[in-house]
């Protein structure tokens, strides 16, 4: 027993390690939140599981990398990259929804699944064609590079920035969802789609805008992740899985759920990798399965 504890939990005695992992967990959680929030909203309103959401994240990262490599550098270039990624993905998302997804809303579910899978395959290879097979990297902007000291410990500044950015987005999303007409329609759609058209809401526009917003969030997430992640083909396959776990645990359709679950998953992953490196992955899916069996609508979702 003592053996087991010392083997897997020895790091717990070291506050620096613990603090570092908590930070890593929370900042990763924020990136996860950006992907999952969009995925959750898209499911809540459009009732589509967007397997291509990871690809949207990846495209955001690639766009950011490209913008940064073309620009002279500095803080403004970085902001430009973030903006470009968000805007590009918003437009792209709208195009995908209007051009492709819209045609199959009434089709059997296997068609919707196949369509998003097709996007995964197509976008993955398109990224390869446009940006090559190698991993790209970009550096953290000078302003955010380095570290800060607090509570007697050092934290990488970029990680703190990510947490700040994530919270800002979460707050912004909350404000939009609770204080704008659009947001009210979105929340209503999550609960009862049928009512919307009865109320005279332009559901077409709503669906397009929701998908575009989800894509924009993913793109922003990708851009924010670009400095700390290997941006290469295959990125879109890895990130989506954690996003699914988050959306299931948090509740499909709930942004609050996505936030809470993202932080949970981020932190548990960070510590899980320390304590049980082999098992962490297995545990993640086991938890996903357990939630689906016991409480399919997750922590904050709407029961069917």
């Amino acid at each position: 027993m003592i053996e087991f504890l010392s083997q897997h939990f020895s790091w717990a005695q070291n506050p620096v390690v613990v603090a570092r992992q908590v930070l890593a967990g929370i900042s990763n959680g924020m990136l996860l939140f950006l992907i999952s929030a969009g995925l959750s909203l898209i499911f809540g309103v459009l009732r589509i599981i967007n397997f291509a959401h990871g690809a949207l994240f990846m495209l955001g990262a690639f766009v950011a990398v490209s913008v940064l490599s073309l620009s002279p550098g500095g803080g403004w270039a970085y902001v430009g990259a973030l903006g470009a990624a968000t805007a590009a993905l918003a437009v792209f998302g709208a195009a995908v929804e209007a051009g492709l997804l819209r045609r199959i809303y009434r089709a059997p579910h296997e068609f919707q699944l196949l369509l998003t899978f097709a996007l995964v395959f197509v976008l993955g290879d398109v990224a390869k064609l446009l940006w090559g097979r190698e991993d790209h990297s970009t550096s953290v902007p000078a302003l955010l590079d380095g570290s800060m000291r607090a509570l007697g410990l050092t934290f990488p500044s970029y990680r703190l920035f990510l947490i700040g950015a994530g919270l800002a987005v979460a707050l912004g999303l909350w404000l939009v969802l609770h204080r704008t007409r659009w947001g009210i329609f979105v929340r209503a759609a999550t609960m009862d789609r049928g009512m919307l058209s009865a109320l005279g809401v332009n559901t077409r526009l709503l669906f397009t805008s929701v998908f575009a917003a989800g894509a924009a969030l993913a793109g922003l997430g990708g851009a924010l992740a670009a400095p700390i992640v290997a941006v290469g083909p295959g990125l879109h396959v890895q990130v989506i899985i954690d996003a699914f776990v988050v959306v299931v645990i948090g509740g499909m359709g709930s942004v609050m759920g996505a936030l809470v679950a993202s932080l949970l998953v981020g932190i548990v992953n960070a510590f899980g990798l320390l304590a049980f490196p082999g098992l962490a992955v297995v545990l993640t899916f086991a938890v996903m399965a357990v939630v689906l069996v016991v409480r399919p609508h997750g922590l904050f979702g709407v029961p069917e």
Partner: protein
Amino acid sequence: MKPAGRLALGAAALLALPLAISDFWIFIAIEVLAFALYAVSFNVLLGYGGMLSFGHAAFFGVGGYAAAILMKKAGLPPGVAFAALPLVAMAAAAAAAVVVGYFSVRRSGIYFAMLTFAFQMLLYAVALKATGLTGGDDGMTGLKPPGLLAQPLAYYYFALALVAPALYVLFRLVSSPFGYALRALRGNPRRLQYSGVDVRAHQLAAFVITGAFAGLAGGIFALSSGNVFPGWLNWTASATPIVMAVLGGVHSFLGPALGAAVYVVLEVLISGKTEYWPLAMGIIILILVLLMPEGLTGLARRRTA
């Protein structure tokens, strides 16, 4: 031509085929046989039972790994291991399907699909991490049928001898009272309940049977391709049976088999020319979904109508 005539012609073609093509294409033909069984069994669940599983690749993969572990780790003489292969592959896949199915059929629609997906990912993670048993990331390689059966021609007939009866068994299944009830279930589970059928048990049985046959397909393919990888269980693999079934047409029994043949051949031809097979596959799927929802057999039916 009458159905019996068409069937006889098809059987004759399948028997004569390997004699007319190169070894390379015989391997492809074996792959088609395995994937045809995989797709048809999947469609019994989807087209007949109305149950869309996102995790059927799990059973194909379990069958493949069971075959590999049997041949390489069970410590049996190759002949004995090989003889037990069909049964072991099916039993392993069926066992996995019982566990996955038991939890999954308690939900329907999207939650059923997500559950099957989660379980497939769980099995993927196990395949990736249980390095001692499964070879981890590297998978298991060097799988070979014993002796003369390692010859592509011989293995082709071996595969045919397994796949053809398996397809026939599945055909009898969908034509049986069980199959009728399954079709009724797809349309109106509540009505079936009120007629005295335990719907959940029925769905579970269908899930396990189709999972077992997918496992058989996986086992057959493992020994023909010579290896098994965790990638067989990765989430992107869950689209494969769906694509094959929809491509061939989910409204006919053998439609998915046709879909499998077209899919495999396309993959071989396109992968041979370019590394961008995923792009091609994605485009094909988009065309299928947006322009050809009835699949190939649906197109053919409309032509003759």
